[in-house]
């Protein structure tokens, strides 16, 4: 029994990580109706930023990287905006195909820029938290601390974002844009601005995720590719542009992955995820928290 | 004569909204029936149900004695239901000819026949000169006519025209109305969704007035439009029209 509980806990923890990554993607996705294939490269950059800052301040095992959340977030926000202005803006309003090709190219560029700067060798930060955990001897359960932090902050973020979307003018503008860009424009909403914002925030979240994941993973130029396909599944599973959906989807996929991985075969864990994904698509094409707008 | 299309007790609601509320009416063969009513009275919803885009919660649709309930959109087209959309839906990158040809292909085994059919329809709809123009180059009224033209190769029994006058100037309206009558004169029954009353009174033999998803009244346009409740329904909704 405790075995099963442990598996579910493991699933929840990694699920939190997925959710954290998915929030940024789903935001861009919801507002602009495009998949940003470069999203996970933002994560990679966030991790490298953390790595650099960590070494810049000569931190060692006794520290942990979480103090860098704010600076990294700010830098990544600016980065996201710059990227949007340079690459995305010229093609706003084009069909899906252009976005796919462009963001693909972007991910190539970022990956290899990183390889040029930091080489292909995995780097990692020296912090004690990476292998700490809450251990319940009685139940023989353990919860890895770094992941727990990531999980909690992921949830916190999701709440903050939904609050932002509900209660601020910017947020409302973005929601309106995601409902129907044309009508929003008619209502005098500056959709271009919403796009810009969505893209900036998307990269900001990826950056924060980068900070939170830096104790758990080593960082190397292609680390993003580990997550990309799963994250797409999470976003669609949760429902177009639904932030809560991203959280739920992330957790669900995390659990399925661990159940299949533990009781069937690790190699097949991704298969389990994608099969689940396809089933949900068929039963609930709008995703679990979907709000229509399926005809993309 | 007799009814070509029978709508019995049709009912659908979205969430809380009871869009169509136990609606029943019949369409006589060869007539032009005006389906009118203020915005949100359920006209378009009714059309969407009849054409198979939505599935009703309850009620029957019978075309020439065949029950359409179990039929999908394509089946209904083949059985003789045609419809246009409020905003025209041209195949932008295709020419006028190709747009009609596609429809012709769908309803003719032989390509040769399909081509002849296409020629005929273009001729009939006055598109012959524009045949090789790209749909994307057409002005809005012509796009609406192209939508109608595309329906003809299916040899429909009933065509439902959803606000085919919206956004047109008087001259274009008249042209459109002539086209509609021309199609009707070929023996095609027309269901004419509109709220430009002048047009309706001009070409419709009969109108059915909807309000809040219910049938409010029915009869020859002239007398229906005099009825207290009908006027109220419109004025109530802030429509004093034509």
């Amino acid at each position, binding site marked *: 029994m405790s075995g099963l509980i442990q598996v579910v806990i493991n699933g929840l923890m990694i699920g939190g990580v997925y959710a954290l990554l998915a929030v940024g993607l789903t935001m861009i996705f919801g507002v602009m109706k495009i998949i940003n294939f470069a999203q996970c490269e933002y994560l990679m950059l966030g991790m490298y930023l953390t790595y650099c800052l960590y070494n810049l301040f000569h931190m060692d095992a006794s520290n942990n990287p979480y103090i860098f959340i704010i600076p990294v977030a700010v830098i990544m926000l600016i980065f996201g905006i710059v990227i949007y202005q340079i*690459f995305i803006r*010229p093609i706003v309003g084009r069909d899906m*195909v252009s976005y796919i090709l462009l963001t*693909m190219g972007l991910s190539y*560029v970022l990956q290899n820029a990183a390889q040029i700067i930091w080489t292909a060798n995995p780097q990692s930060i020296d912090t004690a938290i990476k292998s700490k955990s809450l251990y319940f001897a009685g139940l023989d359960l353990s919860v890895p601390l770094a992941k727990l932090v990531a999980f909690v902050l992921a949830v916190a973020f999701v709440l903050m974002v939904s609050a932002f979307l509900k209660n601020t003018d910017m947020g409302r503008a973005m929601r309106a844009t995601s409902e129907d860009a044309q009508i929003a424009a008619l209502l005098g909403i500056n959709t271009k601005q919403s796009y810009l914002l969505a893209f900036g925030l998307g990269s900001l979240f990826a950056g924060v995720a980068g900070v939170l994941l830096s104790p758990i993973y080593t960082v190397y130029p292609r680390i993003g590719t580990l997550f990309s396909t799963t994250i797409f599944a999470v976003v669609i599973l949760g429902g177009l542009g639904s932030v809560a959906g991203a959280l739920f989807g992330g957790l669900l996929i995390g659990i399925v992955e661990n159940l299949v991985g533990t009781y069937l075969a690790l*190699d097949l864990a*991704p298969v389990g995820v994608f099969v689940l994904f396809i089933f949900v698509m068929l039963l609930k094409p709008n995703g679990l928290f979907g709000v229509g707008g399926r005809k993309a | 004569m007799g009814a070509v299309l029978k709508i019995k007790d049709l009912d659908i609601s979205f969430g809380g909204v009871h869009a169509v509320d136990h609606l029943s009416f019949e369409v006589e063969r060869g007539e032009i029936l005006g389906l009118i009513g203020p915005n949100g009275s359920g006209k378009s919803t009714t059309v969407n149900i009849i054409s198979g885009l939505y599935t009703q919660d309850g009620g029957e649709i019978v075309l020439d004695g065949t029950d359409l309930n179990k039929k999908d959109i394509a089946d209904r087209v083949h059985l003789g239901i045609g419809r246009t959309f409020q905003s025209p839906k*041209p195949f932008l990158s295709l020419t006028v000819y190709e747009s009609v040809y596609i429809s012709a292909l769908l309803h003719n085994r032989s390509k040769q026949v399909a081509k002849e059919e296409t020629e005929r329809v273009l001729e009939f709809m006055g598109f012959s000169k524009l045949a090789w123009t*790209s749909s994307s180059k057409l002005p809005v009224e012509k796009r609406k006519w192209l939508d109608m033209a595309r329906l003809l190769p299916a040899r429909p029994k009933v065509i439902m025209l959803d606000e085919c006058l919206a956004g047109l100037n008087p001259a274009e309206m008249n042209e459109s109305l002539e086209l509609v009558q021309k199609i009707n004169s070929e023996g095609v029954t027309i269901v004419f969704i509109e709220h430009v009353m002048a047009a309706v009174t001009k070409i419709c033999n009969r109108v059915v007035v909807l309000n809040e998803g219910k049938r409010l009244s029915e009869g020859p346009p002239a007398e229906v439009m005099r009825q207290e409740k009908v006027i109220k329904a419109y004025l109530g909704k802030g429509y004093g029209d034509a």
Partner: protein
Amino acid sequence: MIKLKSKSTVIVLVLLVLFFLFPLMSKQLFGNTGNYMLLIAFNIIMYTAMGSTWNIIGGFGRQISWSHAAFFAIGAYSAMIPLVRWNISPIVGILAGMVVAMAAAFLIGFPAFRLKGVFFSLCTLACGQIVYRLLLHFTGFTGGASGLVMKKINSDRALMLLFKNNNVYYYMMLLLAVLVVAVCIIIEKSRLGYYLKAIREDEVAAESLGMRPNQVKLCAFMISAVLMAVIGAIYALRFKYLDPESVASHDLAIRIGMTVIVGGIGTVWGPLIGAIITVPLLELTNAYFGNMLNGGLSQLLYGLILIIMVIFMPDGVISIKSLWQNHKVKGGL
């Protein structure tokens, strides 16, 4: 009109002849690097073929599919496994592969086509991943990640489709590519082609004319899958080594689509142009910049060039024509 048409056909024929004679000319043209040029030409032809098959569903019907690497892999493995494991002629394997690919296309397409646009794309991405993982997992059969390798060929065995001279495979692929392009030309002017175009433009309108879009799409999807399988088989025979990473990974799936999009999606000649550009581009960046700056430079440039292309040639290189020619619509059917 007629004159122009014939003119363009002449150009295409010239190209065809060029490709046909290339194995004979390459040595004279490029000296020692002739064989390498031949390999590039082979890749151009292969990606033209792959792109064209993808184009049937991805271009004409604008259903962007990321599962075509899976069909390629299915074809490749169906030819290789019987040959390596039981010494059965690839001819049998190719036929089997076509059947399997068609079945796979049905299994993938049937659910996937219930989704639209981006969602369809991501669903196919997931399906492609499933095939990739299965190839990795069933090691005993597919060799898993260690891949399948062919023994050294010491003598030609026509029935086994094993030839020492790679030009044989060059011509096989060329023939196949011509065939595929021909199929595309036929489809474009066929019933199926028009239905696909209608779906691309407005699926709801198409359905309201009495079309069953999902049947049309599924049909196109299966045709394209079957052709893709054959291409995969020839690839396997030519290169004599297969592993899931190189034939089933979604990098390949994306590269196939990218080739078409760069050239001009939904056009018969887009894939050819795309292949003629992207294949040498990859070689050039690799040759000039391969080992520079920690090995990052080549791919970086590749990505940058893609981005620039998207921004300045939204409809692919084929759209350059619009620079000196305003959109006239050609007549005749």
